[in-house]
């Protein structure tokens, strides 16, 4: 799924869904990510990794997408783990204290290992 300035690539690793996002996540593009997470949850996949390696920007609209699903996903034994953030993107999460709620990891592999260890 893509927009001119935002793209999502999906892959499955066993029971994990990995979404690699790139470009800009703002009020214009965040509905695309919301649709993908909605699909994942509807399909019963609650172990989700979002790889931010090619994401250059996030606004509160993007943060809101993660807030919309985290409770439901955790209540179903899963999680949304966030990985590979650029410093300027992490700075936005950090500004608002989001690392208190979200598991933010350096590498996608760490998230896979954590899920598989559960």
């Amino acid at each position, binding site marked *: 799924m893509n927009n001119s300035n935002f793209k999502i690539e999906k892959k499955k690793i066993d029971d994990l869904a990995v979404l690699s996002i790139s470009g800009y996540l*703002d009020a214009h593009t965040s509905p695309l990510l919301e649709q993908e997470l909605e699909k994942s949850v509807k399909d019963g996949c609650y172990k989700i990794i979002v790889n931010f390696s090619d994401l250059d920007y996030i*606004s509160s609209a993007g943060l809101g997408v993660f807030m919309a699903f985290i409770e439901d996903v955790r209540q179903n034994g899963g999680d949304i783990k966030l990985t590979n953030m650029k410093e300027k993107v992490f700075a936005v999460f950090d500004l608002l204290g989001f690392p*208190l709620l979200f598991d933010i990891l350096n590498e996608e592999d760490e998230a896979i290992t954590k899920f598989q260890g559960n």
Partner: protein
Amino acid sequence: MLLSVENNNSICINADSSELERIRKFVLNFAEKFGFDDITSNKIALAVDEVCTNLIKHSYKYDSSREICLQISTDDNQFSILILDDGASFNPSSDISLDMRDYLANFRRGGLGLHIINLVMDKIQYIPRSEDFPKNKLILTKYLK
């Protein structure tokens, strides 16, 4: 529909979320040239994005024929962005003291835009539209330290 107008230090756009990227690039370019680092420049662009997103959503209710104008000015260590709109007056510098621990613990969503603007900017001035001047003026200022 308004044709986007961009001058050296000002830009006018239609109130459409597809224009947010252009607004951010405009602000980023000036902020970086002024001397802010990458992370601070990004946060200033974020604050302006949040203002414009709120205007598009709440003041203009997604009517993309409406207009938002920005003008950047600098003086010594002061970097200011003037944002003009003609929607209903609303003061974004009002105290909204958001408790983020409570926000996160209760899985709340939305309402972070004003909080971000207040966290990022050093000074926020708001002048509602009047008979003398028909547009709301919001001036966001950040000091280069």
